[in-house]
């Protein structure tokens, strides 16, 4: 596991990947095993329809809430999934370069014949690999849970929604990694990216009800992640590509800044 920076980084986050993957799998299982009680509860749709718009923006669509996809959309992809993926990605991203710099191990790593760009890209790849494992675990949890509970679920929709969640996590993680690589400051990297996530979430949910703020949803990462309700309607390639493009630009800037700046002592 110590052949290169990529494998070393994976090894460093091994425990974290395992624990978070258990978390995502349990989330998938819990929500799917819980679903039949929602499906069978009569009158829930009527109740939801009476809720204020702002609450529904958070919970999901009243019409689809009692369908398997609608329920998962609300309970997994509405809040818990993005939160787990976001927290994992931001901690991993902020800690990987800025964290090494702050703990003073980066100098010694870079005294070896490995370029800064190379270190950054390998660490980015390790982060994406970690998120991939979380995604697989969530997929197993959801699909496994639906089999156990005995209800049908769109395999393609679920896979696409998890992929979209993966892209969201990658976006947040790589923003954190990039801010950290550009500045060497771990708390700035973590804080700034958490703000991007939280503000993005608010803009796409509660605040979307405020008409004046509605146009701002276009700057929300959550809008591009799941505004399309991916598990129900399938992935929106433009939305997905937008996130990928943002990440690509952020990474290019990060490589440039990381190569150009002085390392902190």
């Amino acid at each position, binding site marked *: 596991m*110590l*052949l*290169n*920076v990529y494998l*070393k980084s994976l090894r*460093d986050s091994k425990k974290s990947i395992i624990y978070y993957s258990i978390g995502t799998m349990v989330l998938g299982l819990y929500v799917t095993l819980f679903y039949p009680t929602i499906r069978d509860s009569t009158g829930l749709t009527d109740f939801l329809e009476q809720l204020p718009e702002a609450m529904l923006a958070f919970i999901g669509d009243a019409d689809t809430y009692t369908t398997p996809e609608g329920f998962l959309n609300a309970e997994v992809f509405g809040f818990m999934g993005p939160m787990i993926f976001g927290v994992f990605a931001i901690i991993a991203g902020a800690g990987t370069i800025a964290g090494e710099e702050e*703990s*003073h*191990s980066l*100098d*010694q*790593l*870079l*005294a*070896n*014949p*490995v*370029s800064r760009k190379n270190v950054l890209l390998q660490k980015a790849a390790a982060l994406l690999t970690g998120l991939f494992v979380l995604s697989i675990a969530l997929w197993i949890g959801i699909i496994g849970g639906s089999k156990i509970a005995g209800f049908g679920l769109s395999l393609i929709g679920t896979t696409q929604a998890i992929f979209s969640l993966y892209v969201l996590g990658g976006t947040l993680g790589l923003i954190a990694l990039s801010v950290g690589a550009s500045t060497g400051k771990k708390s700035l990297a973590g804080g700034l990216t958490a703000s991007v996530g939280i503000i993005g979430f608010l803009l796409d949910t509660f605040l979307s009800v405020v008409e004046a703020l509605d146009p701002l949803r276009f700057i929300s990462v959550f809008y591009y992640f799941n505004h399309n309700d991916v598990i129900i309607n399938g992935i929106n390639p433009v939305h997905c590509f937008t996130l990928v493009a943002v990440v690509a630009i952020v990474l290019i800037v990060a490589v440039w800044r990381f190569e*150009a700046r*002085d*390392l902190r*002592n």
Partner: protein
Amino acid sequence: MSNNAPISSKNLTKFYGKHRGISGVNLEINEGEVFGLLGPNGAGKTTCIRIFLDFIRPTSGSATVLGMDSRSESLEIRRNTGYLPGDFITYEKLTAEELLQYFANLRGGHLSKARVLAERFDLDLSRKIGELSRGNRQKVGLIQAFMSDPKLLILDEPTTGLDPLLQQEFHALVLEEAASGKTIFVSSHVLPEVEIICDRVGIIREGSIVAVEEVATLRKQTVTKIAIEFEEAVSKADFEKIAGVSEVAIKDHHLTCNVTGSLDSLIKLAAKYTVVNLQSGHPALEEVFLTFYNQSDETAKTAD
């Protein structure tokens, strides 16, 4: 620049915002020598080293290491350079062996020399870095710097905080490696260390190189504090007459003085009396500096 010197810098200058790191540093290290950069903390030693390794970039001026540009060819420079800082900080969760294996992998090398060195320095490679004492951690640093047999070694205050025995072993290793043809650049704030291992010394003060000297020359100009206790009264005037002896003071058969260069004449005169005790103090770095500044002031005055 077609300069093949192991390290060469031209007008190397680094400012951290408004704060001076170094200014106008010109250095030329010869192949196969042990060069010491001597200066107090904050003088700019680490700044020079971090520029050579491309951790930071000069504000102006340039440096070549092993004949290559410190910025554009850093990767190739680092492939052929071993680096050990004064406080070797690295991945605490790895065992010493894992760390050395990791760095060897990054360098495309193996651990055969590392194992020999670990045995020599009596280091248990199976322990985690985070559990090692300061001295043992520094041994790991030492091994990783030397294990790939680099052409150039850059050591930044490598023995700070090590016990004297380990310092000695370390100095022995440096001398062996130098004898095998390696070039070694070492920074230090203690003169005795530099005297033991270096061929030449550059003195850095407030970011500028104020002198570059052969160690032998430096030693000649070094002031040593001597205190001698005699059994009987001695003549102050006799001691004041000796060339190189200054600040002679005598109190109750105790003589103190400063000696520049060789102690031979003083010892021979003292030997005419019964000596109860003799102590010599290593001169403080400040005093070495003062000797240099006084000299350069005098040179300046003569030039006027």
